């Protein structure tokens, strides 16, 4: 399916993945397959809470199984650099309930 919504165009770009359990992982897309399994390099998790700003946890090289992926977003570096994560407070995302 060459016209389908593949992830080819995002390879080697920074992406923001939202998983089914509500986590947000940001990293460089290195690979993917039909099942949306994903290889992320130099990744970190952004932990949202209402008590303090966004915490960033370094994860490194990660493989995420496609089953657990909700959204793969192309991270706009320009927009991201203007975000003040240390002052951003929010409830963590709810898990996906099938």
């Amino acid at each position, binding site marked *: *399916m060459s*016209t*389908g*919504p*593949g*992830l080819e165009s*995002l390879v080697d770009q920074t992406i*923001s993945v*939202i998983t*089914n359990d*509500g986590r*947000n992982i940001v990293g460089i897309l290195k690979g993917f397959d039909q099942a*949306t399994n994903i290889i992320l390099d130099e990744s970190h998790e*952004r932990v*949202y809470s209402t008590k303090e700003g966004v915490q960033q946890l370094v994860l490194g090289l990660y493989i995420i199984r*496609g*089953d657990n*992926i*909700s*959204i*793969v*977003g*192309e*991270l*706009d*570096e320009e*927009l*991201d650099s203007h*975000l003040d994560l240390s002052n*951003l407070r*929010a*409830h963590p*995302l*709810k*898990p*996906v*309930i*099938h």
Partner: protein
Amino acid sequence: MLFFSYFKDLVGREVTVELKNDLAIRGTLHSVDQYLNIKLENTRVVDQDKYPHMLSVRNCFIRGSVVRYVQLPPEGVDIDLLHDATRREARGG
């Protein structure tokens, strides 16, 4: 296959995709595949104050398995055509 074809005809339209984690994302439908994975462009989360998690994302891929609803523009729905197509599919092609 029916809804795959149906969504392909909606490419270029503005839709709102509601996910099974209650997040609703509005954007222009860029493409769909056989799993009903959806790619949206110019996205914004409907309640950005409550969900600031995607503030720096403008294009995104949504896995078909987490989609709860797709809200369509009324002019994107040809009810008669859909009725015919679903009946034909129910009869077995």
